[in-house]
């Protein structure tokens, strides 16, 4: 179990409750977290699987945008919302699969190739949309909008529940399916896994496809949240997602990781900025503190994990 990350999360929360008590003792700030953190948590969670196989994906912000563009184009072309929805998810999954195919077929490190595909996907999207955004305020879209980003139970945003669902599903996939077992083996020692009959390339392709699927879903969520599809969608979410995965205790070297750790990690990342500004630290010092909090969290998480293991 990832006790480390829970320890860090609780410690940080206690600090903020003291330093920023006006904000952190009212429920509004938590509702705000519930609505904004899932925008990147929904991608950090599947990214965990990729990182466990020893790979990385830097192209998912572009996949977000490309698949949401697919939704916008299909919807404006056919007027069919669910066709657009399905189209977006398929576009995302295929983009992810394409990444996985490049990585495995040519045996190229994903860190490099997904820089390339990131530009490619973003370029295709921009060229397709001609750089313009699309409003998502049509009456007909109210249903899907409500489903994705509406508010339910005590005003908690639906995207929070989607992130919880994603965590549960991917926890199951990772820990209770053969595919999940192979994800760990692939990242731990590729050659050993191959010698024992694991199709490591197929495993990798599938993790990338899953990533693409979730990136597409996150793209729709993020766009409906602001009722507008920006062609630059996703650009700022890369660092947050990656930081969440690693803060959550997943190893950069592969073979080790949990989706629950990532889930908690993403809420820590999501809370830092608000906590700092609500503590009354203003302007440029926020970045100083943002950096310090990340550094301290990572250190604490490393120290606590080691303590518990011993």
């Amino acid at each position, binding site marked *: 179990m990832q006790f480390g990350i829970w320890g860090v999360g609780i410690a940080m929360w206690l600090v903020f409750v003291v330093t*920023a008590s*006006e*904000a952190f003792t*009212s429920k*509004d*700030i938590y*509702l*705000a*977290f519930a*609505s*904004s*953190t899932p*925008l*990147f948590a929904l991608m950090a969670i599947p990214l965990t699987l990729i990182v466990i196989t020893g790979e990385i994906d830097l192209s998912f912000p572009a996949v977000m945008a490309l698949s949401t563009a697919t939704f916008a184009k299909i919807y404006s072309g056919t007027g069919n919302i669910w066709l657009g929805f399905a189209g977006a998810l398929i576009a995302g999954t295929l983009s992810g699969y394409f990444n996985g195919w490049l990585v495995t077929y040519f045996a190229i490190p994903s860190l490099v190739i997904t820089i390339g595909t990131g530009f490619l996907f*973003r370029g295709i999207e*921009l060229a397709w*949309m001609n*750089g*313009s*955004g*699309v*409003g998502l*305020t049509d009456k007909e879209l109210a249903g899907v909008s409500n489903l994705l980003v509406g508010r339910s139970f005590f005003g908690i945003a639906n995207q929070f529940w989607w992130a919880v669902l994603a965590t549960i599903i991917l926890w199951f996939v990772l820990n209770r399916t053969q595919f999940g077992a192979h994800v760990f083996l692939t990242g731990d020692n590729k050659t050993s896994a191959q010698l024992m009959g694991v199709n490591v390339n197929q495993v990798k392709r599938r993790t990338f496809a899953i990533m693409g699927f979730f990136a597409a879903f996150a793209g729709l969520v*993020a766009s409906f*949240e*602001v*009722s*507008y599809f*920006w*062609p*630059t*969608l*996703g*650009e*700022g*979410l890369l*660092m*947050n997602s990656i930081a969440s995965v690693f803060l959550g205790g997943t190893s950069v070297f592969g073979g080790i990781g949990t989706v629950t750790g990532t889930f908690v990690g993403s809420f820590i990342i*999501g*809370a830092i*900025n*608000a*906590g700092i*500004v*609500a*503590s*009354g630290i*203003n*302007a*440029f010092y*926020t*970045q100083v503190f*943002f950096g310090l909090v990340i550094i301290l969290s990572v250190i604490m998480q490393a120290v606590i994990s080691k303590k518990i293991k011993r």
Partner: protein
Amino acid sequence: AATGQWCKGVKIAAFPGGPQGGVFANNVYNGYRQAQRDLGPTVKYYFSDWDPAKMVTQWKEAIATKPNGIAMYGFMGPEAAKPLVEESFKKGIIVTTLNTSLVDLQAQYSTQGFGYVGAVNYKAGVDLASEMVKRGKLSAGDSAFVWGLKGQGGDRGQRTVGVIDGFEKLKVKVIYQEIDQATNTTPASGGPTFAGIMAKNPNVKAVVTDHGGLTATAATYMKAANLKAGSVYFGGFDVSPATTTAIESGYLQLVIDQQPFLQGYLPILQICLTKKFGFSGLDVNTAGGFVDKSNVAVVAPLAKVEIR
């Protein structure tokens, strides 16, 4: 004079300023494109992501392709621009700028076609702040939250400085916050930050977001902070379809628009005029004016196609 695409054969390098698909840059780009379609020159585009170093690099590369004119949008500073302007004119390339005035160089090369189209950023900032104090009925001692990009390169940051100065001149207390990286590119992720600020400072009467994307996301922020539409006076910059929706729904009160489409269209026209007919540089102020509930209906359809 010729009719139709009378500028055919003229080669132009155009800088829309920001990233591809960026909020403001895309309107400028649309202006360039419209002029290109109307007049017929060959235009190559350089997107600099508002990065001064990249602008300089791209300018050099543009010179290497030997165009007839360069329409430059970007805040790289007069020190960096000077040698490039000089080199361009030496090679017979007409330079004209948008939104970033290079006063001395413009004076020197104006007869050779160095023009200027745009609004003055600092002044736009001051204007918005003063107008908000007036329309939002703020009085001395009230506080306003300014969420901007003071740390961003040069002239871009000047607009935020203008807003702050504008408020402070009228004795309104300013709470300033720099826009973080994630929010800068994905405005929706700024919800908790906004909520945090508003919880810490419950007596804030007015909010300015100095960023087109954030301004368009006003409604989401207000909801995140559990504030009712109109409970604070919310102002911002640049018009986009989402912005007009926010005005209609009452979460956003006032937007200042500097008509970026024109800022793209006119420089192409001017380079063509100078190239074909030898006119000297034009100096045009596009500072557009305010959009609020009263005139949003007119602007909205144009915003949808990114003309306004």
